[in-house]
């Protein structure tokens, strides 16, 4: 979408939309008891480009079942045509069918972009997708790209990263592009589609005389995607191989909002988070440097910082000294801004071990503790505590507020401890800028003012002692899932399975 359209967006503000998202938050997908496949990720990309059409090259199940959208279970993927592969196609190949399918899809749906998504079946039978797509492209009036899941290695989520890479490689990167000099693209995840999150950042950059070329993803069209190539810089939320490709092929520079690169260079814990007043100032200065606008940026940052600090001074009065238990991973910068006391840091490493080395896991711990000390917090660190250990420590420390998602809030509430769920804040507000600190202040004040929940019905149920957000049955299901997918999988490991319960995985507080 174009930046001037930002004011038109209001649909994401309806509280029911948050509730619709939240009601599914306890469903244990996303590496807990299941992982969606690459098709769903690619469908999420096709869905985020409003005039694009996915075409699934596979059998009917891959089209029907994948209508379920694990990124947003309240909304299914609507149009999911497929090439309806059968056993004959498996034997003789389905390239011709794919070619015809692309043409038919174009004639029927009139899309501006067709994204062909391959499936296990077509990957295994070895169809030459590229050749079929090239042939079909000669017969349709829109670009056709294909995603096989093989373009981006292990960059996650593979389906999303691969489809975006395919769009960049096969469509966006081209020779003749009229540049929009001095401009940047602001890019979030196709699964979020909330340009409002960039509203303040766009305003600040504009004040720094940096133009906004495009904001993705929110009402994003194929034309918007093509126009990404016109900017000088892509600003993305996290590592995106397609942005790296644009840097390589189109000389569009690339900057990630989050990432440990900055920290790793200097081992300075203050560089961990790009959020809050301090993190945002640093990040905005970094963008200004890349764009050659340091002079323009300085007064803008200073003015906004001063104004925010003044507002926070008044807004955060009642939060001073409030003892909070915080999961490692949440920005301590923001907590410093709102004046609470981080009394406990809870570090869940089990889910991290699937993507990070042991050394990285320890480095995160060290960096967060250093940052806490730097900010004058002296938290007690709890690494993978059992629920009982956690409660005992919280009582000892006289914790007032536990940062916990709604799905496990009852566990603390029944003990008389209040909770604050920052899920909506993280989804909708957390970004580079000064307003998120003020917003977080409001969220915490509201949480402290809420009536205490004394006897939640959820307490009638038995939850697992180890994975306390799941019932014992679901905990076993989740543990089985992790065990069976383990890299160190060996036949016979299951004999130790029961002994692993409670230490293998604990989603509490994450």
């Amino acid at each position, binding site marked *: 979408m174009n930046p001037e359209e930002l004011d038109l967006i209001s649909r994401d503000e309806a509280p029911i939309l948050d509730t619709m998202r939240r009601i599914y938050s306890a469903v244990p*997908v996303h590496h807990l008891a299941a992982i969606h*496949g690459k098709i769903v990720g690619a469908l999420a990309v096709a869905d985020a480009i409003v005039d694009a059409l996915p075409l699934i090259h596979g059998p009917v199940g891959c089209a029907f*079942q994948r209508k379920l959208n694990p990124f947003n*279970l309240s909304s299914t993927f609507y149009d999911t045509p497929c090439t309806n592969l059968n056993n004959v196609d498996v034997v003789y190949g389905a390239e011709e069918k794919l070619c015809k399918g692309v043409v038919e899809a174009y004639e029927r749906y009139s899309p501006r972009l067709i994204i062909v998504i391959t499936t296990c079946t077509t990957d295994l039978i070895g169809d030459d997708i590229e050749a079929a797509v090239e042939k079909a492209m000669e017969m349709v009036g829109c670009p056709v790209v294909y995603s096989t899941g093989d373009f981006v290695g292990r960059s996650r989520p593979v389906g999303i990263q691969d489809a975006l890479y395919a769009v960049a490689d096969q469509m966006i990167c081209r020779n003749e592009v009229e540049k929009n000099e001095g401009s940047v693209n602001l890019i979030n995840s196709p699964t979020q589609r909330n340009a409002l999150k960039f509203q303040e950042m766009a305003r600040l950059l504009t004040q720094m005389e940096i133009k906004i070329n495009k904001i993705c993803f929110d009402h994003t069209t194929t034309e918007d995607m093509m126009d990404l190539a016109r900017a000088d810089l892509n600003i993305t939320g996290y590592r995106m191989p397609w942005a790296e490709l644009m840097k390589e092929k189109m000389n569009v520079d690339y900057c990630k909002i989050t990432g440990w690169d900055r920290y790793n260079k200097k081992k300075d814990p203050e560089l961990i988070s790009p959020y809050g007043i301090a993190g945002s100032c640093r990040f905005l200065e970094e963008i200004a440097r890349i764009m050659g606008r340091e002079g323009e940026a300085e007064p803008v940052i200073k003015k906004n910082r001063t104004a925010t600090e003044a507002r926070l001074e008044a807004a955060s009065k009642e939060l001073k000294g409030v003892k909070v238990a915080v999961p490692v991973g949440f920005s301590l910068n923001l907590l410093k801004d709102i004046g609470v006391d981080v009394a406990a840091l809870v570090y869940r490493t089990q889910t991290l071990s699937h993507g990070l080395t042991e050394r990285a896991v320890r480095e995160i711990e060290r960096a967060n503790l250093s940052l806490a000390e730097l900010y004058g917090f002296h938290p007690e660190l709890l690494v993978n505590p059992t629920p009982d250990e956690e409660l005992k420590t919280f009582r000892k420390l006289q914790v007032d507020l536990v940062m916990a998602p709604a799905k496990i809030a009852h566990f603390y509430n029944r003990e008389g401890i209040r909770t604050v769920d920052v899920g909506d804040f993280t989804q909708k507000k957390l970004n580079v800028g000064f307003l998120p600190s003020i917003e977080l202040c409001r969220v915490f004040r509201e949480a402290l003012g809420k009536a205490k929940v004394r006897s939640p019905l959820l307490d009638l149920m038995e939850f697992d002692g180890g994975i306390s957000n799941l019932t014992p049955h679901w905990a076993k299901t989740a543990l089985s899932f992790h065990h069976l*997918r383990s890299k160190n999988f060996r036949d016979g490991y*299951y004999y130790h399975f029961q002994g692993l319960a409670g230490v293998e995985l604990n989603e509490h507080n994450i």
Partner: protein
Amino acid sequence: MSTIYDPLFDCKMVGALRAMHGINDCISIIHGRNGCHCGALLLQTLGSEQNSVRVLTSGLKASDEVYSGEERLSSAIRLADQVFEPKAIAVLNCSAPVIMGEDVEGLELLLEGETRSELVAMDVGGPEGPAWIGYEEALTKLVSRMRLNEDVPRGGINLLGFKADDLCSRGDLNEMKRILRDQGLPLNSVLCGSSFEEVKKAPQAELNVLLGGDGLDCAKAMEEEFDLPYISVPYPYGLKKSVQFVEMIGGALGREADPQILEMERERVKRTVERAHMFFQGIYSMPVAVVGESGRAFDLAEFLSSELGMDVKLLAISSSNFATPEKMTAKEAHYQKLMIEPDRWDMNRALEASGAALIFGSSFEKRIASELQASLVRVSYPVIDEISLSDLPFAGFSGIAHLCEKIINSILTRNKDEVKA
């Protein structure tokens, strides 16, 4: 004929899963890639039985596609056996391992005796067929596990074609049990909505009863193997079909249905209608569309048309069964237009043209209903955005009140201001 197809039905794996997951002490292992497992798990989880989801993955990875995933699968089977202690383990071999030539039936033989639970393995690759074939094959696969004890007299009936993951299925089953019990017709086993032990004892019944024609292959196999007769009955939506349901089953067993009980049920339905008769008058002639599986949707359309007086403009059969061809050629059609397993795009155009104000369908019809500003009554599989905790049925005499209140409320509760002129 089009090359592309946006299907209203799932693949063979999900049909088999629906059958096997209905056995309440059976765990299913999806031997396939992440996406197949995730989809299968979600379909079972996003409903009203979240405390009874029994779906595992074998953890098949890309590297296994080169070196074989049979070892991984055998470990998953052992894990399921030890950790969950089920009575049966269904191994569903999905597209990738089927193409790779994984021998799951061989594995079943290999592990025989090693696991405490019985293994039921089958190939359910996506390109091999639709969900309803998977459902039929899974039920048939169970026949080899059934045992007839000649020393015990036969009695009761089996219901075949029951789908435990349909919305309100628990209520439907309770209601069917009730009305059969009232007529002195006890249930023996439900395929699939029983324990594995009860499934194995299915041959002890006097009669197999197919709901809406689902489970025919299994019934034929049981007839051949155990000399057990079968009949197909309508899914008992509404008064007429509920009476038919009782009378046909009674008739097949040579027993006449108790007219007094049926009269009491009629009287109960009458009182229901009386309580909101003005709204029943109001929905008369209303243009509606029905999207659903063959084993349910034909009977639902007939109830809506013949008993509520609704004008069924379109009946779209999302998934066939062996009885579909016969139903298509029935003398009296209770719909204006019939589509069998249409492409979703074509069906949506037909829905637009139909002028239906109310759509009876699945969660996947939510958007077209919204686009057409029609109300959506969720009755067809899959329903993933509505739950049923009160165990009220759609089926049987008691189901009439529940269905009608859903229909009427779906209209009364609409906010007129949200519907554009």
